[in-house]
């Protein structure tokens, strides 16, 4: 891991850890504060409800007083009590009275409990009121109480008051009962002022009719199923309870307060809900702030690390790049360390000094190698020339001595000497021609070349030699990969190089063996492998293999591999040798596939 990355990781990590810690602490504190505020608002809302409830009850009482004192009721009481009219005429009486006094429920009940007229369920006349006579004992002027009122649409919650009206002319106390009130429903809940993120639900018990239902001020209550456990608990115990419900849009805490009827039975439940949305939003804000600061911190860390590392690692990287350039052969690379630290500048100066020294040493080495190469060339030339020159000198000496011989002997000696001189001169020509060839290797002419075809042609030249009589047979194994395809190369030079390798391989197996020729393709290069199972090379021989005029053979100029290396270099390729004594030798050539060869050639120029 680079210094920059480590520095970046350290700085970012430190900042992130700090931000997380602060975020968590603030969130926890916010939650505690919200819980306390929630409890206060719930208590206030419940108090408001109770007050509104009581106020509504008072209004119901007042309305019922007015109903009892109204002219239609007085007339009804007088007609029935004094004139003996039957109740049948008054089945429609309660409806207009109910509407006129703004009530939701109104029953006119005879003293025996029979409903004379029902304003909210007109068809119910004649049936017995479920509790009017029970409550009537203390009903006169009594307060309104919560009741479950039967309507034609089901059971409804209502604040109901009872008033008694004496029948006209009745001494024995015959009377009418007026049972009326208003609904406690969603409309009632609308009268409450709700703090933000709070709501009030009213659960109305359905009694024996089965499942109750929820109402709220908006008219769109939530599904009751998640609240059922809380509701069941309150119904059973008759005591307040609390619970949290997880809605899809977030959690909400509920406080449930039982609403008791006249006989202390739970008729309804007030559910005060406090949404966690605000808290969640705040916590979310805190979290996002933390994330934001964390991101800023990371960016800061990145900048710091970048700046710091720029002052430290870039000079080092530049130095490393320069070292690589030097390694790649660019001895003239310079490193600008003007902005670097002092230590880095010292390092840079030392590097440059080293580079200069290396360059000088390289020059000296190159010159020494040139001298060595010249010496080697001279030695080789002297060696190569000495052989053909020796018979020439013998032949000249023989001629000189033959001058003293008889003419017939002189002619014989003269002819032999001429022959020897000619052969020697031919040898000299050959040596000179080889040296000339190596000196002026032609510029390769690049063209698309089917590499396998060139290799096959080279193999075809030496195929007869492999099983020539008089020598141990050499097995040929050819593995040409069709994927090699075409490359841009000089077919003749490549062919010459392959031929040189084949010749060397054959020469390395005087006692026979196996000759393998293989081509393959690997990404951007094509490969030619020529392997023999001869004696192999020592390490020294391996190192000097591609030196011109260096040879392990008893014959030859030692230029073959040099020529191969030159051809490979002209094609921007690479040649290496793998060999061990006693295990044979493999020459491995890599050439660029496609256009690379030509490009490499241009670069070399």
């Amino acid at each position, binding site marked *: 891991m680079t210094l920059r990355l480590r520095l970046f990781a350290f700085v970012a990590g430190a900042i992130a850890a700090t931000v997380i810690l602060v975020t968590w602490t603030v969130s926890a504190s916010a939650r505690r504060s919200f819980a306390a505020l929630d409890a206060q608002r719930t208590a206030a809302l419940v108090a408001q409800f109770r007050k509104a409830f009581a106020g509504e009850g008072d209004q119901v009482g007042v309305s019922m007083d007015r109903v009892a004192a109204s002219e239609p009721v007085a007339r009804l009481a007088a007609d029935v009590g004094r004139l003996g009219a*039957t*109740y*049948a*005429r008054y*089945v*429609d009486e309660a409806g207009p009275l109910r509407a006129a006094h703004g009530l939701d429920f109104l029953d006119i009940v*005879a003293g*025996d*409990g*029979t*409903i*004379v007229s029902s304003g909210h*369920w*007109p*068809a*119910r*006349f*004649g*049936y*017995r*009121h*479920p509790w009017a006579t029970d409550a009537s004992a203390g009903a006169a002027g009594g307060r309104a109480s919560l009741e479950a009122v*039967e309507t*034609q649409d089901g059971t409804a919650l209502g604040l109901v008051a009872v008033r008694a009206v004496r029948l006209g002319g009745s001494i024995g106390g015959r009377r009418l009962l007026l049972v009326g009130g208003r609904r406690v429903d969603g409309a009632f809940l609308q009268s409450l002022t709700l703090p933000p993120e709070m709501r009030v639900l009213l659960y109305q018990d359905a009694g024996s009719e089965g499942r109750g239902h929820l109402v709220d001020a908006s008219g769109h209550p939530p599904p009751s199923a998640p609240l059922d456990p809380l509701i069941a608990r309150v119904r059973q115990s008759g005591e307040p309870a609390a619970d949290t419900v997880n809605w899809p849009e977030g959690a909400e805490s509920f406080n449930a307060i039982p609403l008791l009827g006249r006989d202390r039975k739970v008729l309804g439940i007030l559910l005060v809900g406090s949404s966690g949305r605000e808290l969640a939003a705040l916590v979310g804000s805190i979290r996002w702030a933390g994330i934001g600061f964390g991101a800023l911190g990371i960016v800061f860390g990145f900048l710091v690390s970048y700046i710091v590392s720029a002052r430290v690692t870039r000079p080092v990287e530049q130095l490393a790049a320069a070292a690589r350039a030097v390694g790649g052969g660019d001895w003239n690379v310079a490193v600008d360390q003007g902005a670097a630290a002092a230590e880095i500048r010292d390092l840079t100066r030392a590097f440059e000094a080293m580079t200069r020294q290396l360059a000088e040493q390289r020059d000296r080495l190159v010159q020494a190698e040139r001298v060595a190469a010249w010496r080697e060339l001279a030695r080789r030339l002297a060696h190569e020339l000495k052989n053909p020159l020796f018979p020439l000198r013998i032949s000249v000496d023989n001629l000189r001595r033959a001058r003293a011989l008889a003419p017939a002997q002189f002619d014989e000696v003269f002819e032999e000497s001429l022959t020897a001189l000619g052969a020697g001169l031919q040898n000299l020509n050959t040596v000179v021609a080889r040296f000339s060839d190596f000196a002026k290797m032609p510029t390769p002419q690049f063209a698309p070349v089917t590499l396998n075809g060139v290799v096959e042609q080279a193999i075809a030249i030496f195929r007869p030699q492999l099983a020539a009589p008089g020598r141990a047979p050499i097995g040929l194994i050819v593995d040409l990969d069709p994927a090699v395809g075409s490359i841009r190369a000089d077919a003749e030079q490549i062919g010459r190089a392959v031929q040189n390798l084949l010749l060397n391989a054959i020469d390395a197996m005087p006692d026979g063996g196996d000759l393998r020729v293989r081509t393959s393709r690997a990404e951007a290069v094509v490969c030619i492998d020529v392997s023999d199972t001869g004696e192999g090379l020592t390490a020294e021989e391996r190192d000097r293999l591609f030196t011109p005029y260096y040879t392990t053979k008893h014959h030859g100029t030692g230029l073959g591999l040099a020529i191969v290396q030159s051809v490979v270099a002209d094609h921007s390729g690479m040649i290496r040798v793998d060999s061990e004594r006693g295990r044979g030798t493999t020459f491995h050539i890599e050439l660029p596939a496609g256009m690379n060869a030509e490009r490499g050639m241009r670069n070399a120029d």
Partner: protein
Amino acid sequence: MTSRPIAMKLFRSAFLALANAAAIVAVASASRPHYGGTLRLETAGVIRSVDPAAPPADTAEAASRNHILPLVFETLTTVDSDLRLQPGLAASWESVGGRWRFRIRRGVSLHDGSVLQAWQAAASLRAANPSWAVDADGDVVVIDRAPMDLPWELARGRNAVAVRASNSALVGTGAFRVDRIDDRRIVLRAHDSYWNARPFLDAILIGMGAAPAEQLSSIERGETDLVDARPLDARRLAQRGLRWVSSRPRELIALVFEPHRATADQAVVRSALAAAIDRQTLAGALLQDRAAPAFALVPPWISGYAPLSGTMPAGVRAGVTALPAAQRSITIRVDAGDAVAQAIADRIVVDAREVGLAVAVQATSGLAPRPDVRIVRIPIEPSAPDRALAGAIAALGARVTGLAAADVSLPPGSGSDAVYRVEHALLEHQIIVPLVHLPDLYAIGDRVHAWNGPALQPTGALNLANVWIE
């Protein structure tokens, strides 16, 4: 759950008294009647054609035609308050070998001033009854291939005599003639040469298509003199000091179970519902004594017998409780515009709870889910018992009567035994459940008086020729 009404005496209606007295309730006709003036009348139905033989488009138009057209077009025979055939335009008649001969009353003038001829009456009857062979022979109308009870048939409004005048308008012989008619109004004028004495009124202005509530408000404001009234309006009429006239019961309100509830396995439900309904309270309290409990299709004053009211069969409640919840739920469909039917249905909801049935009311005027029961209103023709029952059977429809009983054939002229047998068969399985019989009701303004008899006959016929206004 509320208990059965315990103080039934509070709501017991004098339905028998109603049955007897409704025909007698007469508008005050004490003072010397005055000739002249225009009676303003409103009705819910819209009369689209004054041709007596034209079929009505709906029940409201049918009711309006039954009341209004007889003022203009008269029949050869009439049915009196005691359900006896009386001469109308025919002074006498006889039947010989299936051929009927009706002697046309002499001196009856048509509204165009000409005297009614037998051939004109014959042409009118022929047009209304193409299957009859109707001809004229002097001042006699001769009819062949007619029903056995032809005189009763001729008393029906659709067989009133309507003559095409020279201006192509239809003219009649009634106490009033049509002066003009449009979409919303009919103006009738007194027929000065009416053969049965000129009416007191000079004209009758009839507003059509007025909803019941509008009519009531109109008469309260004094803008009309005579309007349709509903039993539910009785209290309001009394409070405002308005008078009302009533015929004898001539309409049946009944429950009719749909085919899927008319099967044998649903008998427990039908029986329970039928027994649970408190007809006395319906008629006496809900309908303010302006109706009579019905235990038969034809009211007793027409059929001549009063069927016994049934009591709750033993074990019905237990039987209902044992049923699955789906079977204990019943949907009753009522016409959304019928306040009386809705009030009855609302009361049935309460009554049905007592036997464990959950009834829901479906008040609709368009497409709606299939109900289990319908409330239907069946007009009962004040006529011979067999004709009244045959008319009710026709009004119920073959689908319903086919569900209820196998054989409901009632040949013309059938006696009371046959009438009872067929009626019993129709009601036996409680697929048809009679509820109440309703009379025709009219609210009458202060300035309206009737002379020498009620403005509304017990049969439901409007006797406006005898009405005078202050």
